[in-house]
């Protein structure tokens, strides 16, 4: 499967990649995006099987990208990996079609719990 990792921090993209491996999802093809616009473009072009996106990014936020994707009929499974998780964000993410929010700092167990139903 192809997983698209979007975060404006290269450090965080690397940590997400490492955590995927630690969680037992190391065999998948990984693609990266470093801002919201790049995430939107890469999702349309690469057609990933799963998107793991930061919330707060330059150009477009993660939730804006998700809205734009759904408005364009792209139904890719989409989850957030974000440092801020509030009730209103969870509600907004769920209403827009996100499958999960993983809070930073995260562990491999948290990745396993959220991703097993999709990648397992």
């Amino acid at each position, binding site marked *: 499967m192809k997983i698209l990792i979007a975060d404006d921090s290269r*450090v965080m993209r690397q940590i997400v990649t490492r955590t995927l491996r630690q969680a037992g999802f190391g065999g998948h093809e990984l693609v990266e995006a470093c801002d919201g616009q790049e995430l939107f473009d890469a999702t349309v072009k690469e057609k990933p099987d799963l998107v793991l996106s930061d919330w707060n990014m330059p150009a477009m936020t993660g939730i804006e990208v998700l809205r734009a994707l759904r408005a364009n009929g792209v139904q890719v499974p989409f989850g957030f990996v*974000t440092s*801020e*998780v*509030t009730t209103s964000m969870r509600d907004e993410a769920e209403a827009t079609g996100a499958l999960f929010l993983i*809070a*930073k700092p995260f562990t491999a167990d948290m990745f396993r719990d959220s991703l097993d139903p999709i990648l397992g």
Partner: protein
Amino acid sequence: MSISTGPTSEDLRVIAEEVWASYLDPEGIRPLLLDYSPDEKLDGSDGEVSAAVSVTGAWRGHVVVACTSAASKHAAAALLGIGLDDVGGDDVADALGELANVIGGNVKSLLPEPSALSLPHVVIAGPSSGSRWPAVTELCRLSATWYDEPIVVSVLESTSREGASAA
């Protein structure tokens, strides 16, 4: 607007320990030491690195992570999983910015909603407090040591309407 509760130094300790356990010291070999911090090494000199995220909305202020250059290189090496000698300037800025983002995001969850978190601002070789934050009061602070180098996390509440966008 002032808030009457949280975040506190204890909240910062819990958040920082989670960040260290997840990213900076997952093996438990180099924990963040909380009992002692030679704060005087963080005097705004050339050897200092700081990263901040700003919160605007129902609460306005900044969450600042400041440390010595040496500590920032250790952080970048640990986060990227590379050797200390391979750490470049961009790595340091990215690593400290992401630390501020993660800690700031968790602090924001303790603050009144609605509010928004900015992208991180990183200053290498510059002051982390004082003149850089002219219209704030310090709400709480965590002073710690890592690799024998000081690391300070502070939550600064804006005291004026204009102060919220001073970052």
